[in-house]
């Protein structure tokens, strides 16, 4: 018979979980309920006394062309930054897994970027991307004005995609490396006995066996680039030039805290939440089928 330690007084148990519950309530449920409240009501022009307006806020949001543009931008941003981050992380992990010289250092070094807060990373990239003095300024020596994220929307988008990808690389790298190392060594050896070279083994053996990891990272990275890119956009481009980098999450901030349209912003954040939920659902529904779990 197993003996379990338990507390006779329930109040002690509640006391122990109270801090955690408090944090969840204050930072999750309460703001979420506020967003719901604001999304379905409208405040009077001079404050106070919210009025129930049903779906009016959502109608307003969806009839706004700039909002649809921000959805489209967010999708492009999510797809490209996730693709870039995951492919770079995979290449780095494959090299680290091959135990080439110095892999011990890189294995640890590659993880550091993940510890850097998005605004800090964005600040660093602001210097790199500076069209006059940054590293990217060298592009302008090829052709004047080739690179200028302050003027060109495409350049600005490129800049935030690169920054987001850079920040996400380390996270994906950890999981890819762990995934690669969990493939039994003898499988790779069997592959090389069967005559497959490095690239062939990568394509035929390692990638298919990494499928669960790839799928997991796809979901995480996509979600992250929809919801967690605010810091990068705010420091690097502030949504400009001419809204070219105004992602959904950044538009919520602009409309809410600069335009002071709390209700519209609240409706947008509900839409964003629904979009992320929907996307995750589709990923599980259609992509996971193709994943082979061993």
């Amino acid at each position, binding site marked *: 018979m197993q003996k379990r330690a338990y507390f006779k007084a329930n109040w002690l148990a509640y006391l122990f979980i109270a801090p955690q519950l408090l944090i969840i309530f204050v930072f999750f449920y309460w703001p979420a309920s506020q967003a719901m409240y604001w999304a379905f009501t409208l405040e009077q022009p001079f404050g106070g006394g919210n009025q129930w307006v049903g779906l009016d806020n959502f109608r307003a949001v969806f009839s706004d062309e700039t909002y649809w543009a921000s959805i489209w931008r967010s999708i492009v941003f999510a797809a490209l930054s996730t693709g870039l981050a995951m492919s770079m992380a995979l290449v780095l992990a494959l090299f680290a897994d091959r135990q080439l010289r110095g892999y011990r250092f890189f294995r640890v070094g590659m993880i550091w970027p993940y510890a850097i807060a998005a605004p800090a990373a964005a600040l660093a990239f602001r210097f790199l991307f500076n069209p006059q003095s940054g590293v990217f300024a060298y592009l302008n020596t090829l052709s004047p004005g080739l690179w200028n994220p302050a003027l060109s929307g495409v350049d600005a988008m490129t800049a935030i995609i690169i920054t987001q990808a850079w920040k996400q690389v380390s996270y994906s790298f950890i999981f890819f490396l762990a995934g690669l190392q969990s493939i*039994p060594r*003898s*499988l790779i*050896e*069997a*592959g*090389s*006995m*069967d*005559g*497959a*070279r490095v690239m*062939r083994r990568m394509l*035929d*053996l390692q990638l*298919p*066996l990494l*499928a669960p990891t790839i799928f997991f990272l796809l979901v995480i990275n996509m979600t992250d680039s929809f919801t967690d890119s605010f810091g990068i956009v705010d420091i690097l481009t502030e949504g400009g030039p001419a809204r070219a980098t105004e992602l959904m999450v950044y538009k919520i901030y602009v409309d809410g805290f600069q335009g002071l349209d709390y209700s519209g912003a609240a409706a947008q954040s509900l839409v964003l939440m629904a979009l992320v939920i929907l996307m995750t659902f589709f990923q599980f529904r259609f992509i996971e089928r193709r994943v*082979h779990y*061993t």
Partner: protein
Amino acid sequence: MADIDIRKVEKFYGKNQVVHGVDLNIQDGEFIVILGPSGCGKSTLLRMIAGLEEISNGEISIENTVVNQLEPRERGCAMVFQNYALYPHMTVAQNIGYALKVGGMRKAERMQKVEATAKSLGLDQLLDRKPAQLSGGQRQRVAMGRAIVREPKVFLFDEPLSNLDAKLRVQMRLEIRRLHRTLKATSVFVTHDQVEAMSLADRLVVMNAGRIEQVGTPEEVYHAPASIYVGGFIGSPAMNFLPCGVSDCGTFAVIDNTSFRLPVDPEIGRTIAGQSVIVGLRPEDLKIAPEANDPNLLTVAFDFSEEQGSGRLMHGRLAGRDFVLHSAGRHHPAPGAPCSLAIGAESVHLFDPTTEKRITVAGAKTGQTGTLPAAFQKTSDVTVSGAIQ
């Protein structure tokens, strides 16, 4: 002719040496079993032949081509791994055909070969299954099929049967033997299981701590172990070892601290008269003598026994050491009663106490040095004059 020549091969992991100068010549079509305890370097040696481990020093050549710098795929070897190492995301057919696919064989031809191989292994009903849907024995067969389908020059087996249950292991052992008879490819099989080793090997290589202790046919290794180590490792239960002194006339040896005498082949005994030796006695070579009167006959009282079905293992103590005897048949001595044992000179194995090597005389009956291949002589080349000071 796919013979393998291993010359002075060493393996270091950092400063740690795991294989110490191994010399071995494997002839074309031979079935070689490398036997040893875990950590003796046997798998490392096999993996160096396969090309999965770098060779630190020395040379390995296959078909007279030095393969030290060749990639595994260029060496013409196929390997069966201990855990089978099947590709979990591929079907049985894809697993077997992968090497051919990589080799660029066209699909129709490939499928034909895969089917033929699968059929010969009784896998033709399972071609569309994934490894996870197979039993242990079936996975083992797929692993074999993957090796066979390539028609390699050399088969390498890395303890392929150790994950199977006892019954299946015996069955697969037979199948491997049968397969070798039809394919006639040079095979190197690594195992720590002596029964497996004895039953499969054309020649047996016994390894210990990174060195070859003995190379020989299973009979040679069993009947003339080259060292105390081999004597103790081969045979179950293990050989009894007793420190003795050889009499001045060289016809018998007296067990230390007792008056018991053991007969010694006079031809060998002559050369080591008056020396101390270690005598090895196989539990199954000892017979219980009908009468227990002679004070010189080895007499032991057995205090407990283990029933084996085919006989009984009797355990006792002699000269302060544990002593085991295999009593065949159905009539066994009663516990506690002293039994005298009849021992022939041919079952008395003599070892040098300092070098722990077998004491032989060239051409003598028990020492088969003269009839053994060259590689064997190298490790068992202990002549009396050189070994005994």
